[in-house]
């Protein structure tokens, strides 16, 4: 049904003979705009990149625990339904050492250290997040 394909011919067909180029000017403009947005926000995040001072662990959007980064710590997060995650804080870096979630993506995630960095365990709705600034280092919050 189809002749043996000749890539060169096909390429020629697309870019040349039909008169339409692979990329139009508008494509390049659009790509440029998206790239610019991405780079500007990356730059913005980078400029705001500060050493974190504490870790907040939230489970399903609710604060579970807040711990200072300067203190080495192992936190076991055990939920009522049996979901289990283990977070380690050492020398200012935070990572997930163990979890019984199916994908283990949270365990594979890099260590986090800077303000606003997060590790998420989606199946368990656990978010480990670095917060910064001296103002946040508290032992407990009265409410």
């Amino acid at each position: 049904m189809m002749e043996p394909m000749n890539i060169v011919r096909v390429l020629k067909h697309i870019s040349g003979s039909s008169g339409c180029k692979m990329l139009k000017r508008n494509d390049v403009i659009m790509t440029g705009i998206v790239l610019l947005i991405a780079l500007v926000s990356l730059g913005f995040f980078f400029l705001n990149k500060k050493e974190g001072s504490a870790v907040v662990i939230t489970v399903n959007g609710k604060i579970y625990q807040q711990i200072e980064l300067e203190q080495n710590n192992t936190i076991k997060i055990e939920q009522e339904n049996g979901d289990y995650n283990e977070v380690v804080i050492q020398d200012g870096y935070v990572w997930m050492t163990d979890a019984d979630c199916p994908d283990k993506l949270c365990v594979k995630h890099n260590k986090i250290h800077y303000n606003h960095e997060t590790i998420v365990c989606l199946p368990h709705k656990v978010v480990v997040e670095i917060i910064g600034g001296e103002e946040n280092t508290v032992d407990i919050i009265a409410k």
Partner: protein
Amino acid sequence: MKKVVTIFTVLAMIINITACGPKTEQRFESSFLELFDTVTTIVGYAPDEKTFTDYSQLIYNRLEEYHQLYDIYNDYDGVNNIKTINDNAGIKPVKVNQKIIDLLEFSIQMDQMTNDNVNVAFGAVLSIWHDYRTKGIDDPISAKLPSMNELQGMVKHTDISKVKIDKEASTVYLEDPLMRLDVGAIAKGYATEMTAKYIEEQGFTNGMISVGGNVRTIGTKFDEAGTKPWSVGIQNPDQESAQTTVHILQLEDMSLVTSGVYERYYTVDGKRYHHIIDPETLMPSELFQSVSIVCKDSGMADALSTSIFNMTLEEGKNLIESLEDTEAFWILNDGTYEYSSGFEAYIRK
């Protein structure tokens, strides 16, 4: 309303990496969810994990006892608690544990001190609000306010002098059959204080107990850098804000309790109605966003935070200034801060 007992305990352990230097104790944390309908967190320093776990267990057991005794909604097998007293109002005196009598006497003392602004015999009115709030939270669309008639009808059943305590016989009797005790404004703080004193006697001298944000510090922190005070944040009433705390206090052997409009509330026609009811207007007090009290005794801090919440700023300031080693911090509705004379000394620079 059976409480699901959830073991939701976190043991957080600090690994000391300092190879040399003076031997320090390690920092541990544990928390559990099943008491007083809130999160209890214990932080403390101990030589090893087992010692800390043992202290935690003692604290848990003691708090659990208070939790059952001071419960106004649930019955427990073989325990006469505040609910038992309420259930027997106008019927007969109830023989109770000394811890209930102590709480009620302390509450009456607090009520006198605060010019009847934290009346534990106010339960008949509070239970109306509680019912409307619970229904309103469960079913926000048909949330309603209690009618003034309904509330005023119950005011005559709140005379604290009709709470008859017989210390000899260890009984409590409510003379008025419609009277109800509600110790919600004071029991958590009182139980925290009593438990903190107890555990300190057992040798737990560098720690902190927080029962749902009623914070009681015991001694200081204790680490490589030597001793330093506990850093206790005051919740920002604006919970949308990225800043969780408005001030951080440095406390040593002190309590901090905050009462705020954000704690428990329900919404009727787009307006929030929180849980601190002014005994004069019978409506949620609308003077402040939150009031924080620092003093030694956590029970007093709890009682004061509620009663000061119901007073004008001037009345509140007068009361606080008349008390020794007691400071207060108000966040007004427009977001401005007001302090008692010595409060700012506690703020971490």
